[in-house]
């Protein structure tokens, strides 16, 4: 159960990103993505921006709920008033994501299904990303991040589309993740 959270500016440019895992149900709070997920997650989020642009006109709330999925990743979005997107990618079992990247010569055997964890992970938020519980948890998480983000952008030296480097902001996002996800 791993999460990838990213803030994407108006020019498709990432302003902030963070990988973390769940802290609920005995989770260690660390992400367990595959190595290729490092770029694949970014590709997936980039591609899901198309869906954001589709959904945003049909929804009057800032929180757009689940907007897209890719294999077993699902993406939730929160759209700020300045067209900055908060994207949360959640993956209940990162080791089961094939990603379909061609690796010539080596055909990796598919990883064992997490059948053993199935019962356990069924109670996790990411196992059913469209459930009301998940949507509510993500909504609260996004709300908290939004508050921190607004405070961060109140800095008079912050320009639009500038990368957020504030360690305080990062720790706040981490705290919110630990609290709600």
């Amino acid at each position: 159960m791993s999460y990838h959270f990213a803030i994407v500016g108006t020019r498709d440019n990432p302003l902030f990103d963070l990988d973390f895992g769940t802290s609920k149900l005995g989770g260690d709070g660390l992400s367990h993505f595959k190595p290729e997920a490092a770029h694949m997650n970014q590709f997936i989020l980039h591609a899901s921006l198309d869906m954001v642009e589709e959904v945003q006109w049909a929804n009057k709330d800032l929180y757009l709920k689940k907007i897209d999925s890719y294999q077993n990743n699902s993406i939730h979005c929160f759209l700020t008033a300045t067209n900055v997107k908060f994207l949360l990618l959640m993956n209940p079992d990162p080791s089961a994501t094939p990603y379909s990247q061609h690796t010539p010569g080596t055909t990796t055997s598919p990883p064992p299904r997490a059948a053993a964890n199935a019962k356990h992970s069924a109670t996790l938020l990411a196992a059913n990303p469209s459930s009301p519980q998940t949507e509510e948890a993500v909504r609260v998480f996004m709300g908290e991040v939004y508050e921190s983000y607004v405070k961060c952008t109140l800095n008079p030296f912050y320009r639009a589309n500038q990368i957020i480097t504030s360690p305080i902001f990062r720790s706040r996002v981490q705290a919110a993740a630990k609290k709600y996800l």
Partner: protein
Amino acid sequence: MMARFSPVAPAAIRVQVLPVGRIGRNRFQDILRSLQQHAALVKLADIPQLENQQLLSPKALPESSLLFNYVTYPAGQQDQQLAPYELYREPLLVLGVADGLSEHDEKRTGELKDAAAYLRERHSRVVHRHILLLQQQAEAAEGVTVLPDGELSFSLKAAMAEVAERLLVELSTYTKAMQASPTVQTPGQPAKTLQRASSRRGDERRPTSGYNTPTQNIEVSSPTGDEGSRPPSRGFGSPPPTTTNSFDQVRNASSRAANALARSDSNASNRSKNGQRASSQDRVSVHGFGPSMSHEKTKNRGKARVGIVTGHIYMMAGQWHEALRMLTEHTNAARKLSDSHWHAKGLDGILVCMLLLAWAGQGFSIPPVCFPSEQRSSFSHSAKLSVTLPTDFRPSEVAYQAALGKLSLSLPELLKHILALYRSSEGALELPSLVLCEAKVRFCDLLMILYCEGGELNGNARSRIVERIIPHHAAKSAGSTSASGLPRSLIATMLAEAQPTDEDGLTPVDHIQLLGGISSVYSSLGMERKSGMMLQEMVTKLTGALIQARKLGAAEVGIHPAASLSIDVGLESIVNVAAESVGMQELIDKLGRVYGVSLMSAARNDEERSAVVNGPFDFGNEQLKSFVLRALIAFCEASPDPKGVLRVACSLLRAAGANVAVDVSGSSVSSVTSKDEQITVATSVSRTVGVSRHLGFVDVQADYWDDFLVRGISFLAPDTSHILISSVATATDTGAAGTAGNPLLYDPNSKNHGNLAKARLPIVRGEPLTCLVTLQNPLETNVEVESIKLVTGGEDGVELVVNGFAPVTLEPLCFQKVSLSVSSAGVGDFSITGCRVKITAFRERLFSIYARPWSPASDTLVKHHGQDIGEAYKPGAEAESAAVSMIAVEAMPLLEVESTSVAGDSVMLLVGEIRRFDVSVHNRSPDSDSVISNIRDSQGILQLKQESEDGDAASYVGDISTFAAVLQSRARLTLCFDVTGKAGVSQTDLEIVYKRRQSASNAEHARVLSVPLRMTVDVALQAQNADVTESLEDGFELSFDLRNAWSKPMSYCVEILRLDPEADTGIPKQVLLSPGESHRVTRRLNRWHIFASDSNLEDAREGLLKHIKVVWRTWAGDARWGEVDLRTLTLSKQHLELIRGQPSTISLHRLDEDNTPAKLGSFITVRLRCRRRRALSGPLWAQLQSPHESRSLGLLGVPYRILPTSEDEESHVDFVLCPLVPGTLELSAVARPTIRKDCAASDVLYTERPLFIEVA
């Protein structure tokens, strides 16, 4: 061209086009392209009918058409296995395009026969083989069509109609055979869960053979058992060529063996291929045909399946109405028997039929089987209404529109239903994922077209579906949902499911084509990012496949000639895939656009390139950019596309260098790519260029990525003798330097100041000058500069020539100054605007000079949305390119010092000593005369002497700065100077300024010959302890000590210089002073000779020094003489005031004889004399005063007078008086300015002494 993922693709007949004879590659490709363009649709009306053809007669429905899909590659293994289920995957027609055959008729007939036999042998499985002969003088034969005369598009169409006629005949035979067969097997693969379990056990999953059909197993066990499953293509054909061929040989048509031995061989190979898993496959296959099924049911099911396949054949043959009827009937049967895969297939076919009918404008009705069971009752009712009513009451057009509307409304549900049926598993079997994925892409394509046309199957949509004519209006912009309420997100979700994974076991070709198809649908939907992600994946996949194919190709060459047959995906088919997909360039461009990569433009124009691209560089994700670029490099390397490699690699390097004019601090360089990667990419650029050159592609060269390579051009100052100075513009220069702005005040014009009066840097024709070019290298790799040329602009067309440039390597991450020796060939004003730099492995190109640091400024306002940043982007200030303005001047003379009269380094002088100093100069220039225009001396101690004719007697030239002399080329000139020893001066520089003679153009340029003169100056006679005392009226006494500080005796004399020559005191006396001895000298001087102004006391000193001079000479050894510098005398303020004296005095004198007593009663004239040193402000008012009573003195007139202003120092006024009493008469006077208002007490003058007159 019929696209693979067109919604009507199942109705297309696949035609494999092959070259026959000696046909040129380009000719063949032209024909292929024209076929795809013009002959993809053949109307049934155009096809001539053979007399006795009952089945599939083209006259049955003349409005419909045959759709041809021309390819050059054979069907893959998987396509063949899917063939009866999806017949359109297999080529039904092989078309040989023949050219270059013999001119001789008989010979040509033989060749054609051979070719036909070869085709029959090689492609025995296809329904029909035909040869299209391009040589027009030949006559047609059986199975040969000669391309008729005329325009290519029409003649091809006509030829294809002829071919289609034969094809239809053969196809009807094929149909009969098909109808005769009892059943058709469903191609399937074990359901994924089972497959996984088995693969884990067997650990030999192979992507290319992961979906072995049960057919194969049956075939192995009983070769005759599958006779029915695949109808023999030749069973009842008119010319049965190889009747002995049984079907399994047909299947292995790629092996050329036609006899039983080969057959057993191929079977053996098949068995060995599948032997290991035969057991598990058998077990799986048994599930589908369990003993629970009754015989009757099996028979019915077989009938339904055969009916559906036949329906598809009818559909391909253009019998759409008939096909729709057959399909509806048999699909109903399949549904009832819950044969879900065939149910889906049937529905799929029905849908295609309806689309085709709609396109052809034929009336049709939606069969009720198309609706899910719960809706069927209501829909069937209405559908029935719409079917039956139109013929009777309503006009057919209205019915047609109603059917269309219904179809478009029910499409999404219908497609979902078909997909669900496809997805379901038949026992433990499920369809190969290829079928599923392809169906999804096809359906999404259909939905996309529907979405783009606002949810209506209007004319646009229909022609787009069948003819793939894409209308010009762009896809709807983001945010606007379609009027039909068909959400884009639904299509996108469906498409996302169509994306295959590695686990699906698809061949690379299928995988890549699927990705391409998905990408294009996304793109049409306006979801460019998703499309880009698919493209990116496709590129990665393609790269891997290409590398793999290359490896196999290499192995094939090295190992065994037969090995090539075992490769099911050869290099060629991949190249074909690449050729059939969008062009590489467009693909790369599109990826760049989606991910915000600013790719180097492919344009070669220098002028275009020199303008700095000021694009939105901050668009997109840096990491993704670098990932995509790396993937593209790998792709281009694998393709192999050397130009693409260079273009992408340079773009990557530019992205790594951030495309800025780097600041010295270097903080602006962000590094997305690591050092190793930069080096790898840079190496791959040079390697690519090297290899291409080796292969003979000379024009493969990259464009250097960094527009900001040249960061400055400066010139090293030549050595002092060569420096050119401006002899005119010095005044303006100092003026500009003097007005340095206040840094605390804002001056809007300060920026423009620089380009107002910028002095042009002179360069002398023919004389080399060292130029420093500053180059930047923001990357961590070395850059090798092969050559640098300077580009000049200007009206005079002056060009600079670089002499002998040695290649330079730019070190990583630095600015480097490269020195060049340049010289100009012409004369005139010009400016250096840039450099043409050739860097190893890169094309020589023009670089402008960017002297100031610059980086692209981003928008501060965010006003755009989505990816269409292009119009909304407001670029910041463009980078300012600089130019160095210069002037090339005519060749200048060069003077050199040949000799000086000073022996050794320096000369010893005593203070005040005067010594002769000779300098001999030589004009080295071979062809230009020189004019010495000016001679200067930094300390002012040299005086030029002009040699007179007779040699010895020399006279001073008054002002050396105006001296002028002409020096012919290669001539010599000796100049004589007197040098005076001055305390504290150890060196003076004699500067001789000269210029070229007779040249108006560069008169303002001159050169300076500098001759340094070193000296040691010793003290000689010192004057000190000055004192000044008042002496008589108008005079003072100056006294000072003269001390001989020199080690040898010397004599001196003091000269007083008077202005009036008659006052000369005669020859002064010489006095000898021994060393250390001092004399006190006292001289009386008249104050009035010393002119001093009131304001400055120092004037008094200067005036004094003008009139007194102490000359000395030594007697021992060389005679030295000189003057004592009296300036060293310290004179206090009081002394100076004494020297200057009072500014004005008045005095009284008697005019007649002085000392005789005046007679009582006589008239005496008394003169009041006024001496004024300064001009007083006005006339003076003078009054005579006397202490006596007024009766003792008689005065003529009043006792006061006005003293007029006069230019002279002296003025006077006379009083006439008459003493009336004897005794001594005392007279005094007072004077004051006439105008009283500004009269101060100090301005009132009194007589110093009263005048006494004895009166007798």
